[in-house]
């Protein structure tokens, strides 16, 4: 199966006093994870996303054309900061990968199965 790991993190963590150090630590954490993913032969992909203030959301209510809104969809204090798409045999393996994603401060990783081709 493929799973999408959505990285919801607080952008403030990167802009604070020791933001530069936090960025460095988090990048190192991602590099470590990427090395492990690649070494395991996992066909993964992923990206860092621009800040949430660059986000635009199309919101749909009862179908229709969809209304363009400024900002991200998440109604939490965290912003979607990036994602991975990874291969995993099952949810627990996906959770295990997700736990390797560094999160400074508060945050959440949403784990969503990618819709399989054959369904």
């Amino acid at each position, binding site marked *: *199966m493929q*799973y999408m790991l959505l990285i919801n993190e607080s952008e403030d963590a990167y802009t604070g006093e020791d933001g530069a150090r936090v960025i460095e630590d988090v990048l190192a954490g991602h590099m470590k994870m990427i090395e492990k993913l690649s070494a395991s032969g996992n066909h993964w992909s992923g990206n860092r996303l621009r800040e949430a203030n660059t986000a635009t959301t199309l919101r749909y209510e009862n179908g229709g054309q969809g209304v363009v809104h400024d900002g991200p969809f998440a109604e939490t204090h965290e912003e979607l900061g990036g994602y991975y798409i990874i291969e*995993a*045999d*099952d*949810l*627990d*393996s*996906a*959770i*295990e990968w997700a736990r390797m994603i560094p999160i400074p401060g508060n945050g959440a990783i949403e*784990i969503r*199965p990618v819709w399989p081709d054959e369904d």
Partner: protein
Amino acid sequence: MRTEPNRALQEARPQVIAALAAHLRDIDRAEDAFADACAAYLETHAAPRSLEAWLIAVGKRKAIDAIRKENAETRAIEAEAAVHPKESDMGEVIAFPDPIPDERLRLIFICCHPAIALEARAALALKVICGLPVVEIARVFVTSEQAMFQRITRAKAKIHDAGIAFELPQPKHWGERLEAVLLTLELAYTVTYQDAAFARPGIDSAQVSDDVERLSRMLAELCPKEPEVLGLAALVILAKSRDKARVDTNGVMVPLSEQDTGKWDVNRIESARDLLHNAARYEQPGPHQVMALIQLTHARRIYDELVDWDAIVELYDALALMRPSAIVALNRAVAIGQRDGAAAGLLEFEKLPSKKLATVRTYHTANADLQRRLGRQSAAIAAYRRALDLDPAPAEKRFLELRCAQQQPG
């Protein structure tokens, strides 16, 4: 011998469903296959040496028949190959693997996966593993049958769509997964205990609490080296041991300290004591063991005719460290009120977070009891009324009304 075939089928269910689910990797198919196999058993005169093995073999065949029916004829062979990669002869019902592998733990871990909402986990485990009717599950969770059915359906869909594994997790992942199982059973225990203690007229609540006890014992049998699992089983069994003493012949709730120990089930008390004794050997105390020890200390009244409140206060102290909560603090205050008298109890009671506990019925009944013992009748009446406002079930309602009526407003 085919005495009581329905009961035998009910007893065989967990093993058979678990084996079928592990084999078919689909809980719905496993439930259908089990139902079909049971129907077949009731129709035949077969008297297999192992009913479980017979049902598993027939169930597998019925599942293949069902898949064949669903698929176009040309795809049937693929389906058979996919579901039975290793079995060459599907018509063979006589050759059973012996002993049949026990897959019950796998199924428990699937139904109680932490990615499923807690309440849905408990419902799923009771429905799938024990075969408890949805209407019964809905009743103890105080919801409609339809809503409960939807919840169970959603949970099954999550297992399928989110890719919850049908494999037993590796032991290194047991911590979190077992914790989820324990929480599930604890919730099931809590709702059934409330339900059973406050039985509503005309409803037999024993079925649900029987199944919760069955699941807890099953888990203890499957994980004999997990002390918290043994603790939880002991806790559930001890609650069950008091089933016959909880409500009197007039349908009035009897508080634990006033229950007739002659109506307690001494066999259950002893089996819980043995479980806790085994758990203690691992020297890994945990909240379920402590909660069970508190209940066991109450149960010892059957031998000693009195309650060791010193021990109970100490156990609540330990529990408050492991799992601090307003409810634990409340129970601790009540225990102090028994050990040191109502005045000391009230002092402890007044330290409790009153806002947090305002909607908790036992908070007001505990207050009422302390006030009553101190002879402060008006305060007691007020507290009983607050408890009565929080929708107690009939047996408790009658008890509170009686107690309230015995007070004279000053």
